[in-house]
């Protein structure tokens, strides 16, 4: 009860402050608002710059992808690191490496240990077996086509991870782990970051700044720096996809088995 009163007070104060500020906001949907068009006195708005020049700079029509992987590629590197960290942290917290602790007493309320209650999973199994390759192909498409349509490394990576989760859910975790073992997903997650950081690091070798894919022109044999950036973005997205896929599956595998990687839901 005390928590509720305290919560109400805290929420009221916070909400009041936020609403007090809201009245000061530019109108919703105003294309000339400071966020969209910059303010007087500041340097020209980054947002306008992106809209007008991204295609010229990178030949990537999807602005979000370009900004994500190039202009703010440094942020995205750490976003990937966050994912990787989460995987490692969950491993560190949850993974049971010795078979020391006996499983805790079964909880009467959660007797339905599996989602559908029993082992008759033929329909589900077969459907999923058909669906999984389709999901994976679509996921690869999403990764690869992120330049031109919504999508990219994250979305594709999550979908790839989800395809393995699907295998685990429909069949058993053992099937999924047989395809994607613990050693390999940790390594693949590291590899993903290595790809990202490596691609971003390469320009340093050519004497350019970090993440400046334009320097890879010679290496990739492209005509101008724009295409080099475009290819660089693709490389980076690939790295993201690897890491995200591995970690998503790793998180699921650990969470669904309480870190034992045996049994499953």
């Amino acid at each position: 009860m005390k928590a509720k009163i305290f919560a109400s007070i805290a929420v009221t104060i916070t909400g009041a402050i936020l609403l007090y500020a809201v009245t000061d906001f530019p109108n919703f949907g105003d294309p000339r608002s400071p966020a969209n068009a910059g303010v007087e006195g500041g340097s020209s708005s980054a947002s306008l710059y992106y809209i007008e020049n991204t295609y010229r700079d990178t030949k990537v029509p999807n602005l979000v992808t370009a900004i994500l992987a190039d202009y703010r590629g440094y942020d995205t590197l750490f976003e990937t690191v966050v994912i990787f960290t989460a995987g490692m942290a969950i491993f560190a917290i949850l993974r049971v490496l010795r078979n020391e602790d006996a499983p805790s007493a079964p909880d009467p309320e959660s007797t339905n240990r599996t989602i559908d209650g029993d082992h008759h999973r033929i329909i589900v199994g077969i459907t999923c077996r058909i669906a999984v390759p389709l999901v994976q192909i679509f996921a690869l498409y999403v990764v690869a086509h992120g330049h031109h349509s919504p999508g990219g490394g994250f979305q594709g990576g999550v979908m790839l991870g989800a395809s393995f989760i699907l295998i685990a859910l429909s069949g058993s975790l053992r099937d999924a782990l047989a395809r994607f073992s613990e050693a390999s997903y940790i390594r693949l997650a590291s590899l993903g970051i290595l790809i990202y950081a490596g691609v971003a690091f390469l320009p340093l070798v050519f004497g350019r700044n970090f993440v400046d894919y334009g320097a890879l022109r010679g290496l990739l044999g492209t005509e101008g720096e724009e295409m080099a950036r475009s290819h660089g973005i693709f490389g980076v997205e690939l790295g993201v996809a690897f890491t995200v896929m591995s970690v998503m599956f790793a998180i699921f595998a650990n969470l669904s088995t309480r870190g034992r990687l045996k049994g499953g839901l």
Partner: protein
Amino acid sequence: MEAFFKEAVVPHFNFWIYVIIMMIGLWSVIAKNNLIKKLIGLSIFQTAILLLYVSLGVKEGASIPIIDHHAAERSLVGDAGAINPDLIANPVPHVLMLTAIVVGVATLGVALALCQMIYKDFGTLEEDEVLQKIKALHDDV
């Protein structure tokens, strides 16, 4: 009252809702007793922030931030009218929020792992019971 409603609420409708959702989330983070409920509240709290960001990048009548190839090519040859910034949504908040979503799911994963460990050690996910059992641990030491 009506004037206030017209001036303060209607033009900022999204922002009002964002505050409401955020307060729902924050309230349950603080007040809910069940750890999973707290986490759901936390996720809702985070999505409210996404709503703030995405809302502030919206432009009335604008399209998605993917440039039409032809317009883009035209803009390269200096056709100034080819890309009208007012007709393309601000991509920056989208980029930022992609990051925030990913951070959110990462946090959620770690938190759920912690929940499982807490359940393993204490046999419950209700915060008051956990705290009581911790106190009992103290007495043992």
